[in-house]
């Protein structure tokens, strides 16, 4: 099998588990040199051991602009360039709006929305140089809002809007922007929900259908980033076959 990403340099945020981890491994298997960032550095070491190719593990807190700039700089210093940015870091602290702990809102907006904007901002000069790709892991919540999911949906709608504006700005310069919108994936995402009703609802969804696996999303990422230059896969909406909303 030919390694279609031979030598390409990728930075994956939120790489310590779930979609980020699966994506980092899949891109490594395609021949990419992969920088992986997350706050839980111990989890990154085990990812680095599992990956077939070269991996650079980075302490990264996407809510901290200094940390983001340092991670991009370290990636470029180690591998000499940056071709693909995968924004996978995200938190979903679902719950109703009335009576919410607004500290959870701040955390979601800082991680999902501002965090992904900071990484794009820091990475863009390098991506422009290489005619690279920005790949955003959004959500079906970026397409449809539902009760109990207002702020998470707001962050993902925001990611979509930011990505479309970015796409229009950088397309002529050869940078491609991809938004992937997964439905329910078996990850830790729902484990951090503090609202007991929402936590139970998420668990229930997880057992009532054949959920997607992180590898299914990693596969869609690989599909998008291995297309020839004249093909821009701008959006992939991907749900479990059993998922209605």
């Amino acid at each position: 099998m030919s390694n279609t990403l031979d030598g390409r340099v990728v930075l994956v945020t939120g790489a310590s588990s779930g979609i980020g981890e699966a994506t980092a491994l899949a891109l490594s298997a395609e021949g990419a040199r992969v920088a992986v960032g997350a706050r839980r550095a111990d989890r990154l070491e085990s990812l680095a051991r599992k990956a077939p190719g070269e991996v650079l593990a980075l302490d990264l807190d996407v809510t901290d602009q200094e940390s983001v700039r340092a991670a991009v700089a370290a990636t470029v210093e180690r591998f000499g360039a940056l071709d693909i940015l995968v924004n996978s870091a995200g938190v979903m602290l679902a719950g109703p709006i009335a009576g919410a702990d607004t500290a959870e809102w701040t955390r979601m907006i800082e991680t999902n929305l501002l965090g992904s904007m900071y990484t794009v901002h820091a990475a863009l000069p390098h991506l422009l140089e290489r005619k690279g790709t920005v790949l955003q892991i959004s959500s079906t919540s970026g397409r449809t809002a539902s009760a109990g999911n207002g702020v998470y949906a707001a962050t993902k709608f925001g990611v979509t809007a930011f990505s479309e504006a970015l796409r229009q700005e950088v397309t002529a310069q050869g940078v491609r922007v991809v938004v992937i919108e997964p439905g329910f994936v078996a990850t830790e995402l729902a484990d951090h929900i503090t609202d007991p009703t929402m936590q139970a609802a998420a668990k229930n969804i997880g057992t009532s259908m054949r959920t997607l696996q992180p590898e299914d999303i990693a596969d869609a990422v690989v599909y998008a980033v291995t297309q020839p230059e004249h093909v821009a896969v701008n959006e992939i909406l991907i749900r479990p076959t059993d998922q209605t909303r």
Partner: protein
Amino acid sequence: MDDLPLDGAVALITGASSGIGAATARRLAREGAAVALVARRRNRLDQVACDIAKLGGEAVALEADITEPERADDMVQETLDRFGRLDILVNNAGIMLLNSALHTSIEEWDRMISLNVAALLHVTHAAIPHLIYAASTSPRQVADLVNVSSTAGRVARPGSSVYGLTKFGLNAFTESLRQELLSERVRVSVVEPGTVDTELVNHLSDTTRDAARQQIDGIEALRPEDIADAISYIITRDRRVAVNEMLVRAGGQTW
């Protein structure tokens, strides 16, 4: 050929005489599907069928104008007569007559509604029971309905009022059907291509065609095979994975 992902599956593709339809037919045949090719131009269909046969695939050319409702129903029946089942429907046939509302003829609007909407509905309505049956009986345990929409189904622009109307409508139809059919294990998806190098612009008047060509000048258009690849990606996923929507533009396409 036992190891191909679509081995044993039967696909019906409308607008299969050229462009995305022909490329998709070739591609699905290569993945192991038997394909029914529907279009008006007999000689072009025969050519596609012949190409597929040469590569060891199985294809039947069905000449029809599916804007005639009974012919649309016939296409599903003839596919069943020939291959015994229907696992995959690709609604690809479409026409794009770009023009301003002021200068267009109502006949141009009627033609787009007739093919992009009415014909698609007739074929789909006839196919649904057979797709459900295929999903419950085939080794794949899933069936697929893929609609070929357009970026014009996401963003409206001057000159594409009715083309956009048909494609926005198709997107809504797709999403509603998706929700209705998911419990039957029929996956319903929509692909939204940007600028593809096909005959779609050939039907435009000289001035609109020149304008359309000028706009795409300088960018490398998608090839029909690129969209066939996206359709194949959707259909060949594991049965738990439903790729509901893919928006695919040409690399340099800003709009």
